[in-house]
């Protein structure tokens, strides 16, 4: 019996070996052919093809861009072809006025257009002779891929919610069982109402429920869109989360009452010499709360995307050493990627929930006390 097991194990090991062996042969053949093809290629294209820069790939994925760039390939002559969807670029500068054109005019950074050049990060103005014109300040109002995706999320959000609201208004699913899209969203809406709004906001929950639901679904849809390969990382953009956090901040500030500010500027039951410190800490806390919301969503989404890209990059980093190492790494890396990807799907829901929940907690703490407090005292 034991012998048979050893035999089976040996067979398995050999078959795995033979897979790599045959593939390594194939890869070798490939590299033999390649130099022939590359004879006609200019030197800089040759260079760009050879080295794999993980940092560049990672930042290319998580940062905003003027196009959806999927991949690039080399044809028989060695020319680089990009597979991408160009997006409109809208530029404004005091000296040159408003211009708009498609990002494909830049030919992926290889050409200037209309006196503008796309640099590593932003678009700069160039003079006739090709040097950068420092005097012109360019305001980039382009429809970047984050903007496109956010608008798409907005359209889907509005379409889903309005169509469902209409059918509820008609009476469908109010007394009867929910139908179609209602089945998809009713449990989630009920979840937000019962687990997020009611416990934290008490009897005032109806006033804040529209805001909480909008935030929840907007973050959720953007998170899920960001997980589709090739799309932009909208919720991992600090500007996006800052705006969401600022809206939360405004909502929190507008729901404060005198009791809340009284506890901040005159903390009760505290010895006099501690008061200045406590006032400072509490006052900073007002700003730190929304700031933590901003950083949490941003860092979570960016971290998830970076982990996935790093795991994929590992294949190419090892593949650069030699092709067997690359092929050997790929099953492990892909297995880990799939694992992390499923965690990211969980995180997409979790972060939407946490953002909404913490906003609700902060709003609740902003108006709690006050009138209810008096009743509590009588009770005690």
């Amino acid at each position, binding site marked *: 019996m034991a012998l048979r097991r050893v035999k089976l194990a040996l067979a398995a090991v050999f078959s795995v070996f033979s897979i790599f062996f045959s593939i390594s042969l194939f890869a070798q053949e490939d590299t033999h052919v390649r130099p022939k093809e590359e004879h006609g290629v200019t030197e800089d294209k040759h260079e760009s093809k050879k080295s794999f820069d993980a940092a560049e790939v990672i930042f290319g994925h998580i940062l905003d861009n003027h196009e959806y760039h999927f991949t690039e390939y080399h044809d028989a002559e060695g020319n680089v072809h990009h597979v991408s969807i160009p997006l409109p670029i809208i530029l404004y500068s005091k000296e040159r006025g408003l211009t708009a054109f498609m990002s494909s005019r830049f030919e992926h950074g290889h050409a200037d257009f209309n006196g503008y050049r796309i640099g590593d990060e932003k678009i700069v103005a160039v003079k006739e002779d090709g040097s950068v014109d420092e005097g012109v300040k360019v305001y980039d109002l382009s429809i970047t891929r984050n903007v496109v995706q956010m608008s798409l999320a907005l359209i889907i959000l509005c379409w889903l919610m309005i169509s469902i609201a209409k059918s509820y208004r008609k009476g469908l699913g109010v007394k009867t069982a929910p139908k179609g899209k209602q089945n998809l969203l009713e449990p989630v809406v009920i979840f937000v109402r019962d*687990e997020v709004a009611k*416990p934290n906001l008490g009897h005032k929950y109806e006033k804040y429920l529209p805001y909480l639901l909008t935030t929840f679904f907007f973050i959720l849809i953007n998170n899920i869109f960001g997980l589709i390969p090739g799309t932009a990382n909208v919720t991992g953009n600090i500007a996006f989360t800052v705006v969401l956090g600022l809206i939360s901040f405004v909502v929190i500030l507008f729901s404060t009452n005198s009791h809340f500010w009284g506890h901040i500027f005159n903390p009760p039951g505290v010895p006099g010499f501690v008061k200045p410190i406590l006032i400072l800490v509490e006052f900073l806390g007002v700003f730190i709360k929304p700031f*933590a919301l901003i*950083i*949490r969503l941003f*860092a*979570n989404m960016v*971290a998830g995307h970076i982990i996935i890209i790093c795991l994929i990059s590992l294949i190419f980093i090892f593949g650069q050493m030699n092709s067997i190492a690359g092929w050997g790494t790929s099953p492990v890396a892909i297995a880990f990627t799939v694992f992390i990807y499923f965690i990211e799907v969980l995180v997409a829901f*979790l972060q939407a*929930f*946490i953002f909404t*929940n*913490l906003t609700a*907690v902060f709003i609740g703490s902003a108006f709690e006390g006050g009138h209810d407090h008096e009743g509590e005292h009588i009770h005690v």
Partner: protein
Amino acid sequence: MLLDGVANAGGAVGAGLAAIGAGLGIGQIGKGAVESIARQPEAMNDIRANMILAAALVEGAALFGIIVGFLAMVLK
């Protein structure tokens, strides 16, 4: 050159320390939650909601550390 290296090392060590802190914190939260669910299984839903809330707060502090570490590496 040396300064860059030190900044990179500092960022990496900082991120690691932040991760350790978050690990300890979230571990404590998980321990507390599991223990209290074992004692009082009927309160599971309340405990779970509070657990996620506390874990999110701990994680937020850790992410501050990681972001600062990242900035130390990126900003020159």
